[in-house]
């Protein structure tokens, strides 16, 4: 195993152009932008469909349709149609974020007990309050699942996007393959894999901290821990 590229301190100098920290940063930047745009589009639509029940066919099938889209084909098609540059790639990445977020938002809203929503209404909550204070927080666990898979999808596709000229960690893989420099390829692959694994674990932790303890059963567990009368 040739790890000379990965462990060469020169490639870790944050000031040098094309160093691993710089590529990592730009990789995260593109991914974050696509996640932001995709979520800004998909989340409201998912909440609307989940709340009203209108257009559920779209929400149910979006996830499957998105999964069947070949990412490389989508990227290359966008670039061929719109020209080289950041915009077509960002559009492709955003398109990939929408289906999992949309479907999971909808699924999360559908997964909650209708009697809970009725109770919220019965307590006099306005529709917007029911949505934001009951339905959304209760849909969060499922929604976060979709967001996590969207994040992984974007990290993976941003890597592939180096083939159509995007910066980021994929550069090491694509340039390494082109130069027949396997040490560089391996360095890129290891860092990308580590990034994806760490990001997924991190999002898992965030999910645990933002989901209401009443939903995860943690609150119940602590109550049970108290001595029974």
């Amino acid at each position, binding site marked *: *195993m040739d790890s000379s590229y990965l462990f060469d301190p020169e490639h870790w100098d944050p000031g040098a152009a094309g160093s691993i920290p710089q590529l990592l940063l730009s990789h995260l930047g593109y991914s974050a932008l696509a996640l932001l745009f995709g979520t800004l589009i998909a989340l409201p639509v998912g909440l609307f469909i989940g709340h009203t029940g209108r257009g559920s066919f779209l929400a149910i099938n979006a996830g*499957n*349709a998105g*999964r*069947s*889209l*070949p*990412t*490389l*084909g*989508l990227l*290359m*098609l966008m*670039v*061929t*149609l719109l020209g080289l540059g950041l915009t077509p790639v960002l559009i492709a990445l955003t398109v990939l974020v929408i289906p999992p977020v949309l479907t999971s938002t909808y699924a999360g809203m559908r997964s909650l007990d209708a009697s809970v929503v009725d109770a919220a209404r019965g307590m006099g909550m306005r529709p917007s309050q029911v949505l934001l204070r009951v339905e959304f927080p209760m849909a969060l666990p499922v929604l976060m699942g979709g967001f996590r898979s969207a994040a*992984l999808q974007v*990290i*993976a596709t941003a*890597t*592939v996007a180096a*083939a*159509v000229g995007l910066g980021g960690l*994929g550069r090491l*893989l*694509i340039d390494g*393959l082109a130069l027949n420099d*396997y040490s560089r*390829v*391996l360095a*890129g*692959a*290891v860092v*990308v*894999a580590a990034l*994806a*694994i760490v*990001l*997924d674990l991190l999002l898992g932790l965030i999910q645990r901290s933002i989901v209401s303890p009443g939903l995860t059963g943690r609150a119940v567990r602590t109550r049970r821990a108290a001595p029974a009368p």
Partner: protein
Amino acid sequence: MIDYLQRNQELVLEALGEHVVLALLPVLIGIVVSLPLGYLGVRFPRLYQPMVNVCGILYSIPSLALFVILPVVIGTKVLSPVNIVVALSIYTVALLARTVADGLRSVDRTLTDAATAMGYRRIRRLFGVELPLALPVVLAGLRVATVSNISLVSVGALIGVGGLGALFTRGFQLFYAEPIIVGVLLSVLLAGIADLLIVLVQRALTPWARLSAGRV
């Protein structure tokens, strides 16, 4: 587009054939490996959580990275189709092992108890009662794995073996959208057909699901 298809029929068909093999061989390998793994996760509950964690980590590795790391691990050449097959098998197992375990755990305890009382021993009960009842969950996982395998194969084009992905790289190099559109459509169509086939298999294998739905 029709025009492109007619002029390049042979090329497209060859890419399509390669795509099917590269996507579905891993599905078969994945089923064979994950059934015993998932069973172990249920038979020995202590193994369940570690298994889920390892599967989650493997599943989160980006495909291109896995394709090029594998040569170091299994000693293949960097541009070998074996890397694609093994990588997609790993994703399939990572997804299915957990699904099999969850499916088996979802089987109603009273049903397995009833089978035991009727004299079913462990192995016969597994194949005759538990596995069939777990099928809807397992097949739902299989659908996800199959569809994502079909879309992932084309990433392999970046290391020289990618079925329909070859049409993407070719179109991109010529800056010509037709082959890319043909490739995307065929890939999506293939995924749709595979998905439909699994749904039909599920219907055929779980006739009781429709019967009870009809009664209600």
